[in-house]
Structures are given as structure tokens and as C-alpha cells.
């Protein structure tokens, strides 16, 4: 029983386990998308179906809806592993915990974030957003949703041990989401004025890289605190 270390084997093991679990319980994939669609449908019912007004507000509506549905999927991220003891095995395994966490957050993004990005052009029709702002919205979401998953995972790691962790987590995580939201919506505004918005995208990209490198360390120390 010799132990050989291949980080890729660990990453793919954790990643494929989460995906397999998600596909076994279809709800984990369908619920965030459904929630995203319903939040988008509420706005026209609330502020009236006038196409011009809706088109102007559409990017903001889509971003807030995406932010909330990512939040929805976050508390499930570590909850099952915490309650059935897999988290302890992951900590006591011979691999570094940040790598495991990286795989889990990546799987979480593929399950909740990616479908949102893919469905945005379809749901944007509800808000008849068809101009160049749609492309900017999709691009900012493509960069933004993984960022939301990484930042949110820190909140999830901190509150996984608590009973009523859900609300508390959103209180912790929402302030951290504000810079992402600001840069994303400013990118969309400049795009709707047909100007170049690559600056904002670059900032979002930089944030994402920092999150990929720094967040797993923060998340694993948060998990170690929650487990103790």
C-alpha cells in the first residue's frame, strides 16, 4: 500500500465526487437556475412590463439575481461533508486541504455558476435585453460567478458548524460581494454606451486570480476552525 502523491488525482477525485452527487440529486442543479428565473420574472411584475425601462434595468436585475442564486447554493457546499464526517477525513488526509477546497469550489461553480451564465442570454429575453449590453452581462457573469463562489465559500466555511448559518453567511458575504457588483455593472454601463469596457473586465479578472490563490487558504483555515 505505497502512497504516491498526485495532486491531480486528488483534485479530480473531489471534483468528480461533487459532480456525481449533484447529478444524483438533480435539485442541486435545477434549483439555482429556477430561482434565478423566478427572481428575474418578479421585476417586470413589480415595475411594469414597459420594454424600454426593463431593457435599461436588465443587467442590474440579472446580476442581483445571479448573486442571490449563487448565495442559495453556498450553504450546501460543506454542509453534507461536515455532518457525515467526510470533512474530517479530508483534513486528516495526506493532501493539503486548500487543494481539496479548490476542487470543491470549482465543482460548486460548475454546478451553480456556469448554468447561470449559459441561461442568461435566454432569460435576458424576458427583459428584452438584446443590445451589446447582453454580451457584457454574460462576460462579467462568466468572470464574476466564480469570484462569487470563492468569496462565498469563505463565508460557508466559517458558518458550516452553526445551526442557523444560512442568514449569517449572507450577512458576512454580501459586503464582500459589493466590489464585484460595482465593477461588473460599471462594465455593463460602459458597454451600453458602445465604449470599450475591457478595463473593468481586467479588474474582475485580476480579482478572480487573487481569489483563486488566496481564498482556498482562508477557506481551509475557516473549515479547521469550524471542525474544532
Amino acid at each position, binding site marked *: 500500500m505505497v502512497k504516491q502523491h498526485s495532486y491531480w488525482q486528488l483534485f479530480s477525485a473531489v471534483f468528480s465526487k461533487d459532480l456525481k452527487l449533484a447529478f444524483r440529486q438533480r435539485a442541486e442543479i435545477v434549483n439555482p437556475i*429556477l430561482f434565478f428565473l423566478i427572481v428575474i420574472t418578479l421585476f417586470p411584475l413589480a415595475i411594469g412590463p414597459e420594454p424600454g425601462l426593463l431593457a435599461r434595468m436588465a443587467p442590474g436585475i440579472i446580476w442581483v439575481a445571479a448573486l442571490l442564486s449563487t448565495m442559495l447554493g453556498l450553504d450546501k457546499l460543506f454542509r453534507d461533508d461536515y455532518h457525515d464526517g467526510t470533512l474530517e477525513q479530508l483534513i486528516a488526509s495526506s493532501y493539503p486541504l486548500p487543494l481539496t477546497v479548490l476542487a470543491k469550489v470549482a465543482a460548486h461553480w460548475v454546478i451553480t455558476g456556469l448554468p447561470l451564465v449559459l441561461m442568461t442570454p435566454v432569460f435576458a*429575453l424576458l427583459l428584452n435585453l438584446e443590445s451589446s449590453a447582453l454580451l457584457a452581462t454574460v462576460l462579467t457573469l462568466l468572470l464574476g460567478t466564480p469570484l462569487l463562489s470563492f468569496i462565498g465559500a469563505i463565508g460557508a466555511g466559517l458558518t458550516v458548524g452553526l445551526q442557523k448559518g444560512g442568514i449569517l453567511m449572507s450577512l458576512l458575504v454580501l459586503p464582500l460581494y459589493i466590489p464585484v457588483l460595482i465593477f461588473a455593472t460599471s462594465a455593463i454601463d460602459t458597454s451600453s454606451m458602445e465604449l470599450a469596457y475591457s478595463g473593468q473586465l481586467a479588474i474582475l479578472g485580476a480579482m478572480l486570480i487573487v481569489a483563486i490563490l488566496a481564498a482556498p487558504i482562508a477557506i481551509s483555515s475557516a473549515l479547521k476552525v469550524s471542525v474544532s
Partner: protein
Amino acid sequence: MWKWLHPYAKADRAYQLCNTLLPYFAVVTVVCMIVGWVWGLAYAPADYQQKDSYRIIFIHVPSAILSMGAYSSMAIAAVIALVWQLRNAELAVIAIAPVGACVTAIALITGAAWGKPMWGAWWVWDARLTSELILLFLYLGVLSLYHAFEDKKAAGRAACILAIVGVINLPIIHFSVEWWNTLHQGATITKFDTKAIDPSMFWPLMVNIVAFAAFVGTVTLIRLKNEILQREKHRPWVRQMLERG
């Protein structure tokens, strides 16, 4: 009072019933679907105003009607399941829900595709389209509630309750959306009214409606058989049937 209904409370009798009905439904579906589509697409006269884009009516109207029909029959099955504790009715609710959701999705897609040439926008917050969208949410709500439960008996009962709550809300949703729509009448353009149809268009539409209804019946029967088998998996009659089949 419902004496003839009681034998079908037993699972295998209900399974046999589905099996005997299935071929008839399937034949009617195939025949009507082919006749309806060919007649509607190729032989029915073009509309003088909308020319050929109106042909989408031959699947939009039937699917819209069926989406309401499937939901109400689901709700009726739910009432039977809860009031008379008929477990097979509970299975029927679970069998109809996905088919109803698909038919509602078709109604939405065809409505949007028909709206684009007529009003220049894929989606118009027209009263009927909006209620259709909310109906889709009701279907998906029943489905995700059913799949959220581990123990399938509790899941069935919960889904029935939600289906009944949904059907009570349907008229309320419809009238509030209607009122909301007239409130913003200025915003949306003409409503989705189908004028009096002359016979040459009426008959292909009828055939399509029958075709869609038969299709929903067929798939519901297949899914009902699945649900019965799923619940009775460890019973001997399932295994014997398998060896024979």
C-alpha cells in the same frame, strides 16, 4: 358508490390497466400527430394577415390548452389521492407533472416564436403568456418538491397538497395577471386574440388538440407504469412479470 374503481386500487391491477390502455393511446397519438401536423403545415390555407407564421397556432393553442388540462387533471388526481387515500392516484400526480411541465414549456416557446414576427419582440408580458410562465413555475415546484424528499410516500403526499394549492391559485393568478396587464395596457401592444376561425383552420386545430391530448395520455401512462413499478419493486409480481416479459 365507486364500486368499479376499487379493484384498481391494487397495484398490479392498475399496472395491467395501464398496459391495456397504452396501445390505444399510442396509436391515436401517432395518427393524429402526423395528420394534424401535415394538415396544419401544408394544407391549411394561409392567414390573410399573418400569412404563414400563424401556422404556429397548430401547436401553440393545443399545448396551451393541454398545459391547463394536465394541471387540472393532476389536481383532480391529487384530490382523489388525499381524500380517498388512493395511492395510485398519488402516483398519477407524479406521472402527469413532468409531461405537463414539458407541454407548458412548448406553449411558452411557441408563444415567444409566434410573438417575434408579430410584435418584433421574443417576449411580451402579455397576460396569457405571463400566466403560462407562472403555471410552469407551479409544475416545477411540484416536481422539485417531490424530488426533495427521501421517503417517496411522504413526497407523494406533499406533492399532492402543493398541486391542490396550485389549482386553487390558478384562477387568482389568471385574473390578477389580466388586471396587471390592463393596468399597463399602454405598454403592451395588441393582445393575443385568436379571431373566429373558419372551418378550414378549425379542423386541423381540433386534430392537433386530440393529438396532444393523446400524447399526454400516452406518456402519463408510461410514467404511471414506471411509478407503480418503482414503488412495488421488491414485490413478487414485479419479478415474475419480469421473468415472463
